[in-house]
């Protein structure tokens, strides 16, 4: 039943990039709760991404424990108490590191792909 709704052309979240996506989302959007973070990632990906929305929560707790994001209690649109996540200073720094890493990695791969014999 689940499989029927998943279109064939969606891709999984590239390995190790979920942290980066979350940090970037929070950097762009400011404080958000879990659902909004997930939705935002899906929207930016324009349905190209196969994301289990639940999988952002383990990532969030890990980022929080690293001290890169912090949480605050707030009220959701449905009037429920939820956690709002926002970027810390350390998180901002980490984001720039990860962005740099990612760019270096993609540049490297791109160079291999462009290289002719």
């Amino acid at each position, binding site marked *: 039943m689940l499989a029927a709704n998943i279109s064939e052309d969606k891709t999984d979240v590239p390995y190790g990039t979920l942290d980066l996506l979350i940090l970037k989302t929070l950097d762009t959007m400011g404080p958000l709760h879990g659902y909004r973070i997930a939705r935002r990632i899906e929207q930016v990906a324009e349905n190209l991404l196969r994301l289990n929305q*639940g999988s952002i929560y383990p990532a969030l*707790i890990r980022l929080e424990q690293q001290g890169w994001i912090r949480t605050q209690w707030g009220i*959701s649109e449905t009037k429920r108490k939820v956690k709002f996540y926002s970027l810390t200073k350390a998180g901002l720094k980490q984001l720039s590191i990860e962005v740099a890493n990612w760019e270096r990695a993609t540049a490297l791969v791109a160079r291999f792909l462009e290289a002719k014999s």
Partner: protein
Amino acid sequence: MKPRSTVARLLALFRGRKLDHELDDEILAHLELAEHDAIARGLIPEEARQSARRNFGGIEEMKENHRDYRSVRWVDNLLRDFRYGMGSLARDPGFAVVAIGLLALGIGANSAMFSIVDAVLLKPLPFPEPERMVRVWETPPGLRNGTTTLTFLDWKRQTDIFEALSVESPTKAAVATSGYPARVAGKQVSADYFQVFGVKPQIGRAFARGEDQPGADRVVVLSHAFWQTQFGSDPGVLNRDLVLDGEPHRIIGVLPAGSFDRDEAVFWTPLIFAPDQLNRGQHWLNPIGRLRAGVSLEQARAKMTILRASLNDVIYQKDWGFAVDPFAQMLVGDTLRRSIYLAFGAVVMVLLIACANVANLALAKGTTRRKEMALRTALGATRGRLIVQLLTESLVLCILGGVAGVALGALLLHTAAPLVAAALPFTADLSMDLRVLGFAAIAVMAVLILAGLLPSLQTSFGTLSNALNQSPRGSSGSNAAVRRTIVIAEVAASVVLICGAALLFKSLEKLQQVDAGVRIDHVITMSTDLPSAAYPSPASAARFYEAVVQRLQTVPGVEQASVSQGLPLQGVQWGEYMRLPGVEQPLLVRLKLADPWYFSALQIPIESGRGIEKRDRAGAPPIVVINQEVVRQLSKSFGVANPIGRTVGIDVPGYGPIPESLVNMQIVGVIRSERTAALNAPPELVAYIPLAQAPRQDIKLVVRARSGPAAAMPGIREAVRQIDPHLPLGDVMTMEQVKEESMLWATQPTWVVGAFAGVAALLAALGLYGVLAHAVMQQRREIGIRMALGARSSDVLSHILRSAFSMLIVGLAGGLAGAFALTRVLKGLLFQVSALDPVALAVACVLMTLVGILAALIPASRAARVDPMRVLRDEG
């Protein structure tokens, strides 16, 4: 892992439940928002909910990831097992209570006993550098003896060996406190006494050099406790005097709390040698020394040997040497050491039996939990994971048992400490300190391995189908064999203990049956010291003896009163040579000083000749009465057939500053031997000299009452007060108490081992009961079928009892073998009982069998009452 996240993860362990809860909230909120959005996109609520769930993904899997990320896995597992263990214990409170109770009993008794072992045998003495503290002796061949004043002073001059060398002489003095006179214990010591112990006073100073020389001022040092109780912790105490026997002594120091607190002495005064004491004849000093730093025991011994050789001209016991022993070694006697080891061995045995019981219970529980284990295995738990889980449950048990045990141990120790304190050296401080807690922790670990690990390895983790199919009907199996073996071992261990207890009790009974040779009942004794100020001469003391007896005779209820030096069973202070004219070799006898009524007060019969009479006063011809042992020895060694009428020479102790002197006296009578020393020692050679002819200040009153001695006591006190209102009476004891006290060395270990043996037997019976009850429960179907096929109740009963009996017999055999192996341990503590006494061993076996059969009867009768119809219906 970075430090920050490590801390966060560890913290997460303890916030696990809260974090789980928060996560649940977030998930709920998330799904609600998603549903809300979906409805806004135009889906109907049912579809919206499904869509939200679908987009979210697997919730449980995510939660598991969440826990993994935030936490340290194995610790988390451990905590979860811990909680699970608590839960499973709470589900079976009967098992938990019994197991924790057993462990608490074992660990409690062990920690209390260990505290004694530690304080007496293991802990270093509570003095700085205790290894430098020594005792110095003169050594007749094969013995340790005290030394003489002059020899002691020679030793004291060896400053290259000893940093300090001191003697102590116990004393008692009347202290004028509120109203009636009280006698308190003190010690006369050399000036450098506290230097030997390395103890510095908290207030003031210790004795200075020269304060133990003739003519020095009278000074006194107080114990901390005495300062608190008698002087109300007065900080200005140094300006005050303490009046001892009417003589004011200037208080120069107060000892710090803790040092010498368990010593009965509460004050210390300098020991000043009288001119007549400066001889080499009277061996009355037992010096304690502190070796100079860097001098080893061997060096000290070598130097003392050289010194001995140089003194050969002045010491007339040519074959006596000098010896130096570690102080700690001499503090604990051989009997005490043996008793403590014995009691500790017994209590460890009890712990082992308690462990065996818990292991047995756990095994029984293991069989009933087979289904649970199989289910968990089927769900993917590894064998190792399950063992860890079972171990964690055992850990919970052990920790709870350990905590309860330590509390119980503290209680036991608190109760027992005053009872055993008298038998232990004064340095022994009994308390539940860190060392005892450490021991308890080690005991808990040992218990965990014995009672937790083995059963968890034994628990079957078989396949699900096996467990589910077999368990309701499974009868015995390998598990049951293990459990039977454990019970047999328990029985064997208990039998060893019961045998030991039976032997000790028999020995104690023999000891109690020894005829002390004196009247024990209706006799009351007390001690007093005649102060030199009030009784300056021997004649004044002699007048007191006669007057006090005369007055006591008039007290209603008093049958006979007497004065003597020393009591039966407490040992005789003086040992002197009895010299026969014309015989070079003297005979060493104990010297007792008694008034004319001593023999009749204690009902010691006169065998021949006469006793001491009123006419034997000072100035009258000196006489001596001897006991049968002396007669025997005189006839054996010197061929003296009838000693009465013979003249012998004996050194008679002096009075105050009057020196001892050799007196020729006539033997006028022979009495039947009284036991002067402990009841297990052979009767001593004793000579009795009239107290009037050799008066002493330290004396005992012995009063035989017509009815209860307690009723006569007020009259006795009043009578003594009429003679001398300032004379305090101390050590009021009935002769029964004197006898009991003289046997403490035997009674205490006997009752301790007896109590532990009783506990062990009960635990073994409990184990036996457990195994049989479990077997009966498991075999109900089998029993039901048998009964359906015609077996009678009595057949079933005897079947179960036979099974119990087979375990008991094997256990008894093992126990007896153990008892034989341990004879060496008991030997030294037994009196007139062989360590293999057949009666005692038989009694032990019969007792264990009876207890075992009683334990077996309950499950056996339950089996006999099995209703075949019901069993077959229930489980068919």
